[in-house]
């Protein structure tokens, strides 16, 4: 393929490559991700474990909305004194022991 006249000269060389550039052998994906593998005969086998599925739970009786009342001001300082804060593993473990320790 050849670029249009406006890109002739050095301008085209400075632009990032697209899937249409280069000779055969150059592959550039489009951020869709890998969902399988190519077969040696030129085909493609889909690996269903790699295919993404979207699970939407039942929203029956769910009252929360994406918004919070502006009158309710956000409260800060829940992890005061704790340098690790919400990612403290000790806190997590202690909570687990109290809530989930005994099945």
């Amino acid at each position, binding site marked *: 393929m050849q670029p249009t006249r406006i890109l002739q000269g050095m301008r085209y060389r400075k632009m990032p490559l697209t899937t249409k550039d280069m000779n055969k052998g150059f592959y550039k994906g489009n951020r869709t991700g890998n969902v399988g593998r190519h077969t040696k005969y030129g085909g493609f086998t889909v690996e269903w474990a790699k295919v993404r599925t979207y699970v939407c*739970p039942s929203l029956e009786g769910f009252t929360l909305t*994406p*918004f919070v009342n502006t009158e*309710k001001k*956000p409260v800060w300082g829940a992890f005061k*004194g704790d340098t690790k804060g919400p990612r403290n593993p*000790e806190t997590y473990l202690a909570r*687990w022991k*109290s809530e989930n320790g005994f099945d």
Partner: protein
Amino acid sequence: MATPGALRPSMGAALQICRASSTRGIIAPTRTVTSRAAARPAFCPSAQAASLSTTPALLRRHKYIGARVTRDNNKKRGESVLRRTGTRWRLSMSDEPLPQPVKPEELPPIETDPDHGLWQFFQNRNSIANPPLKDAEHGRAWTVEELRYKSWEDLHKLWWVCVKEQNRIATAMWERQNRQLGYGDAESDTRRKTVKATQKAIKHVLTERFYAWEDAVELAKSDPEIDLSGDGPAFTPKEYLEEEVPGLGSGEEVAREEVKANGSDVATSSTPDSSTLLSATSSEQKTAPTI
């Protein structure tokens, strides 16, 4: 004479009749001599009685040799679907009464299902998109601090509520642009940004929880109370739980915890004993901030 034309035709016409009759004789060679003699017309020098009429010859159109074709080569000249001229010639069904289309005003109303899922793409059933003032009537986004209290189920559902709201906003923006309904994109944009901020906060909380879990698993490997091998209970506390004393760990501590709005008190819960276990559980069960 009174009628010269009819009774005394021209020599040209007489010659034509002779020519016509002679060809007829050649075409039917199987005729007998007598019948051939009978076929010759009267005007030929040696003709017998036959058709004396000269009208066919006279009526025949005189064709000039080499004249061009003057017929209309277009059999469908003048026929137009757009102008509804109809056909030039009568067709076999021309006399049959054809059904006429119903006028759009007289058509029956289209039945729609009020519970159809596609209604969820619209903010308002009566108008396609909300007016800008109505669109701007929304609160602020959830903060990460507030979402940390929420369970996985709640966060999962809230995520999909946000996705649906984004779909609604996107539909409204698209319709507004397509039908040129007017202003409203700025308010829709602000609303969408708020929804996105909530979604970002949800992802933040879940990621944080996952990292904390990973670190906790690592820590649990070195904890003597916890057994991760899989045989036997995972957690065996070295201190037994003390008998619950009424008034301790139920009323006072819960009230204090709620005022602080604290998810987990670090100073008290580092070593789990009975009072902190109870206080920890009661603090977990407090209600989340309402919208």
